[in-house]
């Protein structure tokens, strides 16, 4: 098992290295370079020279890159240009909010997606199946930012049940407050993803239903509930784990839009702020951290998958 994890890590390292190099190079190649953002657009030559020296931008490219990479590996992404705080600290403040939203949205998507998939897979082609398939298409097609706006209109503006802007309240400090703030963003993200999950699980359920072991179970006279609930679901859920993992990984960075709709203080909004203020160290830090989490979750999914499916040889 440990060997398997190590080998996967070795495979993932080059992707991480290439991607972070690409990010560094992209920012380095910005027309005018980061210096304009640091010193301000109206800086005089002395100020530019001072800022250049302060951030070490007068050194050779490769030295700058090696320096950045070495610091990044140790978790040091430098000082945010606008916030004047260490990049890692700024990200660390936002990360719990993003993770809490990701978990909540995953739960919502599973609660909606699994029953929808089972109901439509049991009677393929029926009116219920068609209605639910249409619903999945709708969940996927409606832009999350518009869905979020509609939810705000209904639940915050009209009914006044929930806040229209969501703050981060740690769930262990104030569960009710946390749920009130999480409900709308988690629903927005969760509905979208439930469409993907339902389509995927439905397809794998339908193909499992045709498997030989299902016929055997039926001919043994097992009740349909047991066949679907125990035999089929267990097999169909295997590939499903991968999708759920991918979705969670996507929530980390991909929740940018939802976080913007609800002004939720996650890492996505930090990144938007960084981009609009041209805060390059913060942009690099955010993207690299999101990338690391993304890859870590993918790795965790691989390991979990190998662990729960005895057919996969992970030695």
């Amino acid at each position, binding site marked *: 098992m440990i060997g398997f994890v190590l080998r996967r890590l070795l495979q993932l390292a080059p992707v991480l290295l290439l991607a972070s190099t690409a990010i560094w190079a*992209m920012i380095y190649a910005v027309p005018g370079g980061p210096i304009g953002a640091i010193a301000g657009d109206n800086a005089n030559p002395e100020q530019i020279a001072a800022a250049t020296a302060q951030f070490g931008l007068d050194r050779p490219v490769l030295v700058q890159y090696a320096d950045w990479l070495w610091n990044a590996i140790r978790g040091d992404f430098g000082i945010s240009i606008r916030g004047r705080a260490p990049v890692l600290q700024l990200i660390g403040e936002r990360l719990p909010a993003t993770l809490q939203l990701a978990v909540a949205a995953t739960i919502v998507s599973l609660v909606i997606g699994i029953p929808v998939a089972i109901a439509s897979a049991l009677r393929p082609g029926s009116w219920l199946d068609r209605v639910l398939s249409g619903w999945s298409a709708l969940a996927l097609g409606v832009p999350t930012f518009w869905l979020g706006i509609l939810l705000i209109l209904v639940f915050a503006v009209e009914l006044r049940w929930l806040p229209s802007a969501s703050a981060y309240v740690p769930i262990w400090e104030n569960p009710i407050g946390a749920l009130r703030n999480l409900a709308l963003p988690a629903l927005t993200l969760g509905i979208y993803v439930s469409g993907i999950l339902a389509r995927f699980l439905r397809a794998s359920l*339908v193909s499992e239903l045709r498997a030989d072991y299902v016929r055997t179970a039926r001919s043994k006279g097992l009740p349909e509930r047991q066949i679907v609930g125990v035999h089929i679901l267990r097999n169909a859920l295997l590939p499903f784990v991968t999708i759920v993992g991918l979705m969670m990984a996507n929530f980390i*960075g991909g929740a940018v839009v939802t976080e913007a709709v609800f002004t939720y203080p996650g890492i996505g909004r930090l*990144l938007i702020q960084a981009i609009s203020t041209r805060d390059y160290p913060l942009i690099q830090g955010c993207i690299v951290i*999101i990338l690391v989490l993304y890859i870590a979750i993918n790795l965790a999914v691989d390991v979990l998958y190998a662990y729960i499916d005895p057919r996969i040889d992970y030695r």
Partner: protein
Amino acid sequence: MKKIASRKLSILGRLLASKGSALALIFLVGITLAAIFADFLPLNPVGQKLANALKGPSATNWFGTDELGRDILSRVIFGARTSLVTAGGAVMIAALVGVPIGLVAGFFGGWRDAALMRFVDVLLALPAILFAMAMIAVLGRSQAAALIAVGLTGIPSFARITRAQVLTLRKRDFVTAVEAFGGTATYNMFRTILPNSWSPIFVQVVVLCSVAILLEAALSFLGVGVPPPTPSWGEMLRTGKSYLHEAPYYAVLPGIVLTLTILSFDVLGRALSGLLEGHRDPIIAPKGEGATP
């Protein structure tokens, strides 16, 4: 030639035979025509009349007016132009770069395959929206930047689909025959294999149009897409969100048009995928597997 034309016609006929895809097609043709001929319609997307600000839908302003008193319907139709041009250009970039990558990777295999597909993996390593935002941070905010950023995120899907298609055709007799007669690799890739790979690529074009429109709107919604005053759907939703109490229609109505456009491309893509390749769901079904009757 005649045969191909009649095949195309029969596909169009079969598309129109299904209620869903017929509606989608009609909607898309309608909105495209409106976007093309927007200049000749009695529309005024920029005329400000502050006394007229945030008035609800009426006979003169069907979708109401925005915070500067501009007609929202006019801005939605001119916004369609922005969306369709950006999405269309982005899909073209993605196809023009992605398809040759897939062709070369699949045709030659070996180190070329490994190198090109690693490049594609790196593009896939970040969620599309983050990648596009990073690109815009570098290029600066403009319509061209949005177009390029969205286009780059589409490269992997074209590369992968083309590569998969090439791999199934690579060892077929008509390909090896061209090789045996001394046809060059370039000739074989572009004149023998590519013409036989059009269906999945075409389906991908339609599917990616819906993704590109969504992504462009999301970027504008975040305030990093096509810069104002050019009307764009995402930007309208962004501004409309600030007036949810006074003018709920402001964010709702343009959102309906945006959603219908995305859904129409999606419905059409899935219908085409069923007609051209015989499976229902381009997202899930890896050829035949899990496809439903």
